[in-house]
Each structure stands twice: as structure tokens, then as C-alpha cells.
């Protein structure tokens, strides 16, 4: 069979078979080696977080990938393929200049100040006059967590990366990772009892925050999130009813402890 085994004869059949077999084995081996080589290169902390986000974004459903311009009513049924990074999107600048017709702006009784930028992982970013960025949890995020049992914030001097781990919080035995909305170095930390969670010195002098939601997009996003939340906290088998226009309670886990909070946190904080 093989040239180094007794009884081997060079024939066309042998050469063809060995060549095909050799190519197949070589492709399998090269594929594995390339993957391992790339893994070694990409496993550094910052890069690994970027890969985690790519992998998690890849698994999002179409509904979860709704484009910001769809949320703002500028286009219909558009999904994001750029990992929510509008800085890489060629269509974003064109759509951003479109004015949506008859868009009813509301944040449904929740507090979403318009001087801030919003990340879909329930965080906000505010530019400070000294060039730093303040990061906090949105009103919906606060109500979802209520009073967390434990919060693990990064240390001062640590770097955070957009869509990577910002900090973690746990409530009722369920831990959730909160995504950082921007790249930067942590210069101060707050917490649940503070106005903010992180104060960050951006890695660039004038950071581009075009990947974060603003204006009408925030309204559409909050509406979609509230609809999603309704489905998630509904006990299985209960009858359908529509929200009556009230305002969300401040501590949702306390108000509805029987809900599957592991699932709710996973979907609402984009931490599958």
C-alpha cells in the first residue's frame, strides 16, 4: 500500500489513491493547525473578549439583531450584520440622516436622559467635560437587577473593551455579565448605590460613539425590550393580556420571584 511497505508497486491506482488520501489528511491537519495558531494569537484578554462578542452576536436571532434604524422607524425589517458596530457600517451614515415619519417618541415611563448614549446591554455612556466617559446602568437595567446581592467591578487601571466584560452582578444566585459599552481605562468605580458604575478614560482622545443608540432609536429599543421582557416573565400557561400603560416596578425580581431570572438576565443583558 505504502511505498515503504513490502509488496508495494507503483501503479496509477496507488498514486491516485494515496494522493487523494494525502490531500484529505493534509487539509484536516492544516485546518486544525490554523485554528490552533489563531487561537494562540487571539487568546489574549482584550482579543478574547472581542471574539466572545463575535461568537455571541453570531448566535443572536434576527429579532435580537434589529438594526437601530429599524428601531427608530427609519427602515423596515433591517437586521445588523456588523456586530452592532455602526462605525463599520457603510449604510449607517445614510440612514442616520433619514427622518422617520410619525414616530411616537416615548420611553414608557422609564428614565432615559437624552444627553447620554445607550448600549443594548442595558448601559449608558455620558461624555464628561474633562474628556472622560461615565458608564452606568439604564433605568430598565436597574429595575431588572433591583438591589443586587453582589457586584464585581473592575479595578482602577484595568482596561475594558466595548462589548467585552464591564462588570458582573448577581441577584438571587444568578450571575450576569454586564457588557462594557466603550473601550477605555477605568479611572473610578461607583456601584448600585452610586449614580454611575464606571468612569473611563477612553483609549482614543476623541472616541467615536457612533455604535451607541441615541434619540428615536432609544425609544424603539426600549419598546422592543419591554415587549421582550413581557414574554420572558410571563408564567408558562397563563392567559394573554396586554400591558396597561403602567410603569415597571423598581425591583422586578422581588415583584416576580417565580420568573426564570437566569433566562431574563441572559436575554436582557445580552449575556447568553
Amino acid at each position: 500500500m505504502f511505498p515503504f511497505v513490502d509488496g508495494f508497486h507503483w501503479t496509477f491506482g496507488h498514486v491516485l489513491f494515496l494522493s487523494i488520501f494525502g490531500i484529505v489528511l493534509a487539509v484536516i491537519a492544516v485546518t486544525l493547525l490554523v485554528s490552533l495558531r489563531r487561537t494562540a494569537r487571539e487568546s489574549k484578554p482584550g482579543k478574547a473578549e472581542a471574539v466572545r462578542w463575535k461568537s455571541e452576536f453570531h448566535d443572536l436571532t434576527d429579532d435580537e439583531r434589529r438594526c437601530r434604524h429599524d428601531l427608530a422607524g427609519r427602515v423596515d425589517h433591517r437586521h445588523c450584520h456588523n456586530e452592532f458596530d455602526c462605525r463599520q457600517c457603510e449604510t449607517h451614515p445614510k440612514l442616520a440622516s433619514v427622518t422617520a415619519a410619525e414616530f411616537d417618541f416615548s420611553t414608557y415611563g422609564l428614565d432615559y436622559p437624552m444627553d447620554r448614549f445607550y448600549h443594548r446591554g442595558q448601559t449608558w455612556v455620558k461624555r464628561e467635560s474633562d474628556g472622560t466617559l461615565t458608564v452606568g446602568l439604564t433605568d430598565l437595567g436597574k429595575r431588572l437587577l433591583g438591589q443586587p446581592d453582589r457586584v464585581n467591578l473592575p479595578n482602577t487601571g484595568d482596561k475594558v473593551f466595548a462589548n467585552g466584560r464591564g462588570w458582573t452582578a448577581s441577584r438571587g444566585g444568578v450571575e450576569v455579565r454586564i457588557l462594557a459599552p466603550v473601550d477605555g481605562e477605568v479611572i473610578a468605580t461607583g456601584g448600585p448605590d452610586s449614580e454611575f458604575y464606571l468612569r473611563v478614560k477612553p483609549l482614543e482622545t476623541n472616541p467615536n460613539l457612533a455604535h451607541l443608540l441615541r434619540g428615536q432609536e432609544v425609544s424603539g429599543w426600549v419598546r422592543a425590550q419591554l415587549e421582550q421582557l413581557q414574554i420572558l416573565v410571563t408564567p408558562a400557561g397563563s392567559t394573554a393580556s396586554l400591558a396597561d400603560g403602567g410603569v415597571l416596578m423598581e425591583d422586578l425580581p422581588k415583584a416576580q420571584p417565580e420568573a426564570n431570572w437566569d433566562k431574563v438576565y441572559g436575554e436582557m443583558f445580552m449575556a447568553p
Partner: protein
Amino acid sequence: MAASAIKPPLTAEIAASERQWIARGLERCSPLAFAGWMAPWLILLGVGIYATYLCLRYGLGATNLDNRFGFGLWIFLDLAVIALGAGAFFSGFLLYILKWKEIKAVISSAVVLGFLCYSGAMAILAIDVGQPLRSWFTFWHPNVHSMLTEVTFCITCYLIVLTIEYLPILLKNRRIKQVPSFLVFEWELHKLIPVMAGIGCLLSFFHQGSLGGLFGVMRGRPFAFREGFAIWPTTFFLFVLSAAAVGPSFIILTTKLVEKITSKRLVKEQVYQTLAKTTGVLLTAYIALKSVDTLIWLNSTSFNAGFAPWEYYEWKPFGGWILFAEIVVFGMVPALMLLSKRIRTRRGVIVLGALLACTGVVLNRFVMTIQTLALPTLSFDEFMTYMPNWVEFAVFGMVIAYAVIVYSLSYRYLNLFPQEKELSAGNVEVNDVPVR
């Protein structure tokens, strides 16, 4: 009193700890219920392992196989699971080569099924052929004139491919992916999976075909012998086509079975429709070619080999009914059911059609192995009857138990059906969010 005070927290602790291994958003039964489900399969696995020991210790003497009937239940199982496991390569072909995005909903399950079918087939081959410690001989001193050599090389390579394809699914487990290098490796492998899918298609095409060719080239067995093109008898092409046809059907059946057992919707109806239609088209082509092949064999090949074809069907219980069942009942009928949109959209038709299609191909593999070996071909030869003994059934059961156990674990701890989360949320009716 004290015991009842301790028990609930302990159970809850185990459940909470185990929950960390289950993907967020997926509902699974309690660890206790899962253990209850696994117990009988583990017992069956244990009995099979004992039977395997008997086979390896005492050889074929432990079975009802002998020198005349050297291959029986196991080789039938091998050929059947390899055909049914074709869903892995064919769905990979549809998703990564033809870019049918809908197949993404079942690709992970198809890969796991393929891995289980092929690893199960390899395990049973090791027991059937015997002397597994000498299995390297087949690679080192192969018979280059044997179709089995090609099958051996291809199946070995394809099992490696399936293992590589299984890895990213495994590494995506909720806990495992917390290790950054595992997560990155999963992502990098995932990006290169189309290459593996392409290689898988090449390997599957050749080994599925060669398994068929194996019987088609046997001049000494005129019941199976077929003419063909160049070195390939028609059975080469029929095996490839039939495996590709039932691969999607087997995915339908297993997914529907998991849905039934778990009382959950895992895949959207449209995906089932696509898979069913694919089986319908391919099965129609297969049955058309199979019918032509059978007619040529009935009118020419068999006579040329010195046998009137009806002689084969005089040996009971292998009457003419088996040919009718294979081509009409388990061929034309499911092909029509799955091909016609009007028929297959009716309730229950997809499952029935897929079941008939899979049964047809399994029956074909039975005919090619058991019936072929049972029929006498020499004047002094006799018709052989064969019934497997408990050892053979136990080993058969072991492979089934192995597949069920690994699939159950995969379903519980891995996200095999990406649409499950969405569909389970969609099934829940909307209620009020608590308001003040």
C-alpha cells in the same frame, strides 16, 4: 423531620450547580428526572459492554455467526446507521456549500447524530471484525483491490472530520466557553467548518458509494451483483443517492422525537418542510434509478450470471414482497408524500413520510447484507437461515444506548437547536409585567 429539612436545599443546590452547565434560556427537566431517563440506557449499555467482552474473549463462538454466515445483524446495523448518519454530511453540504440558511436550525443536531452513527458503526465493526488491537493492519497492509479499503480509509477520516465538527458545539457549553482559549478555539474552528463540510462531502460520497459498490462487485453473489460505469457498479451510485435522500428524513424523525419527549418546539415548521421536500426530490430520483436498475437486473444481469431472478424470491421468508415493499411501499409512497406540497403540509404526513423513507433504506441495507448472504449461489450450497443470539442483540442495544446517552447529554448541555429559545418564548402567551 431533620432529613426533610436537609433534603430540599441539597437538591436545590445540585440543581443550581447543574444549571450552570445548561445554556441560558433553555428549559430542561430536573437532574432527578434526567437521571431517571438515563438509567435504563445505562443498564443497556452495561449489558452490551459485557456482551462485547464475551465477543472479544470468545470470538464469533459467542454469537450465532459462523464461517458461512460471517456477517449478520451487526453489519446490517453498520450499513443502516451509516446511511441514516448521512444527514450530517448532506445538511453540511446544503448549509455551507449551497448556503441554505434554514438548515442552520438543525446542523448541530445533524453533526451530533452523524458523529454518533459513525462512531457507533466503528465500534461495532471493531467487535464484528474482532482483534481491535490489530485494526492498524487495515491501514498498513490494505488490499488495494477491495472497496472496503476505500471505505475504511474514508470512514476513519470522516469520523475525524465529524469529531472536529462536534468540537465547536461542545466548546460552546455555557461553562466550557468561560475559558477564553476554549471560546477562541471554538470560534476559529467554527470559521473553518465550511472546509470540513467540503471534505466531509467528498469522503461521504466515496464511502457511501463504496459500501454499495462492495456488494455490486461480488460476482459470486449474483443477487447483489450489478453492472455499472468503469469500476463502479450501479449500487455505488444508488447507495450515495439513497443515503443523501434519507439523511434529512432521519433529522426530521430524531428532531420530532426529541420534541415529543421534551414537549417542546425545537425547529420551525418551514425547516421541516425544506428537509421533507429535499428527501422527496432525492428519494424520487433514487427510486426512479433503482427501478431502472432493478429492471435491468431482472431482465439481463441475473440471467447472465446463470440465475432466473425469481429463483431468489422462492426462498422464504424473502419473497417478492420484499422487493415490492422496498420500491413501492417504502420508496414511491414516501417520495410522493414528501414531494407534493399539498400532501406533506397535512398534519403528521412529514413524520410518516420520513419514517417510511428511512425504513425503505434500512430495508435496502438488510436486503444487501442479510438476504444476499442467505441465498445459495452454488449447486451444493444451501439456503441459510440466521437468527442473532442475545449477545448480538446486546451489542446492538449497546450502540443504540451509547447514541441515546450521548445525544441526551448533548441536548441537555449544548444548544443543539438554535431556534429552541425563540420558539419556547413564542409559545408563552404575553402577560402583564408587574407595575405599580
